[in-house]
């Protein structure tokens, strides 16, 4: 069953002459890991805001088409209702953290749902341990590194037990090691708890090997939608300027020069194919 269903979505921000999204159709199945990418300014962030109803509720503008999340239309149900199903993580965690301790930060959303104290406590513990930051619970988010702050933001959403996590370039401001550790957490959450993940990311070489599907936006439209292999090895992907991973480029060059048939997404996979051929 599709957990997210977007039909004919077009959207323009108030006072903007040009639409940011144009006739977008997209289905995301439950438990899918969907990687979204595209040149900057292509509408990725705007699309994320549509998924939890922030658009149009908080932004206004001209909204056409429908976005349905877990059976609820985002224009017919308030953001607080949608946001219990879809958690949105932004690029810059500094902009969303505001409590004096990590524990309070993670508890904040639950307190707003007026859950019983014991339930809040156990959900906070669980969320902190899922992202591996239980030891930070007494700390102030301010004193944490960017990577740790992003983990707090993710834990705060997990505590709400959303069915879908939407992450808008969560690692853009992080060093590669921290970025990698955030990605590993997402992969583990996806495998273990079956949460549906929509990840917006420029660094395809890092994230594509884990995705079930890859969706590329260009100028407000979905221009590619398929398995990471189909998308990254397509002719079209080359012309978009989205940073085709070098491993893919090496494999394509090998295919042109000696008929190599593999479609690896990681250097590990490519090396195994080459060394495997050696026998």
């Amino acid at each position, binding site marked *: 069953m599709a957990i997210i269903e977007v039909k004919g979505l077009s959207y323009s921000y108030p006072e903007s002459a040009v639409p940011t999204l144009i006739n977008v159709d997209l289905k995301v199945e439950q438990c899918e890991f969907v990687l979204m990418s595209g*040149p*900057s*300014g292509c509408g990725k962030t705007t699309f994320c805001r549509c998924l939890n109803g922030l658009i149009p509720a908080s932004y206004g503008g001209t909204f056409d088409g429908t976005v349905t999340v877990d059976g609820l239309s985002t224009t017919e149900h308030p953001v607080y209702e949608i946001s219990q199903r879809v958690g949105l993580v932004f690029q810059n965690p500094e902009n969303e953290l505001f409590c004096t301790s990590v524990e309070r930060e993670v508890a904040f959303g639950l307190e707003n749902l007026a859950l019983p104290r014991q339930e809040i406590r156990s959900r906070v513990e669980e969320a902190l341990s899922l992202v591996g930051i239980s030891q930070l619970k007494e700390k102030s988010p301010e004193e944490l590194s960017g990577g740790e702050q992003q983990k707090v933001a993710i834990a705060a959403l997990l505590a709400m037990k959303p069915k879908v996590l939407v992450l808008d*370039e969560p690692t853009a401001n992080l060093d590669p090691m921290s970025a990698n550790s955030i990605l590993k957490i997402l992969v583990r959450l996806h495998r273990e708890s079956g949460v549906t993940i929509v990840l917006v990311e420029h660094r395809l*070489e890092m994230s594509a090997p884990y995705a079930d599907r890859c969706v590329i936006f260009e100028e407000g439209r979905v221009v590619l939608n398929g398995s990471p292999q189909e998308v990254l090895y397509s002719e079209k992907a080359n012309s978009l300027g*989205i940073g085709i991973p*070098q491993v893919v480029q090496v494999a394509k060059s090998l295919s042109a020069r000696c008929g190599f048939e593999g479609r690896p997404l990681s250097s590990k996979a490519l090396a195994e194919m080459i060394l495997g051929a050696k026998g």
Partner: protein
Amino acid sequence: MITFKDVSYSYTPGAYALQNISLIIGDGELVAVLGENGAGKTTLVKHINGLLKPQSGSVIVGDTDTKKSTVANLARRVGLVFQNPDHQLFAETVEKELSFAMVNFGMPPEEVTKRVNWALEEFELAKYKEKPPFLLSGGERKRLALASVLSYDPQTIILDEPTTGQDDRQKTRMANLFKQLNSDGKTIIVVTHDMEFVANFIPRVILISKGKVLAEGPTEEILTQKEYLERASLLPPQLVDLSWKLSLSKPSISFEKVTSEALRMLEESRR
């Protein structure tokens, strides 16, 4: 030329952020400063425009000892672009943001207009000229911050993580601009974690770890050393990683070299 002579600095007594750093960055160099979080990269570059003064040793920019100069003075020659554009942008419109420093430096108005127009075109920001910077996307704000420093034409440009949030096309554009400025004789220092960007576009690397210079030299030489990368908590560029996984005798950052090695291995196995 920028010279660090035995520079040490600590924010809290007893814990060095920089320890006995000596290095030279020549005029017209394009160099990357790499290192783990907290390695001292930002502390290092803040010494170049005088935001920080060495507690021991000295930093000489051109013929000026930074201890004997002011940030205002050094800023004309050394432009620093911060990692987070929101720490830098403040003007009401993109155009005002771009002209601010130049107006302050007392440049003639026609020169200011000329340079603002150059920056609007070069960074694909022309359509936002009259817009407030905060309405721009993250990637666009980043380019604006860079443009506002480049437009006043300092001799040395320091960029702290310029590629974050930029797509591939913008990165390539940025790299081409760096190369062009570089061939005009500008010194460009890029603090970054973006290993692919360094491998593809930057010829020299200074690797910092725990407040010390761990290694410096040509990019390929440094980035193919597993030990260095591990000590500085850096991930290898994809081609280096592939070189290692194929056990190549000469790991490389060159697409052509790695691909032909892979080709050779495939052809051998078919024989």
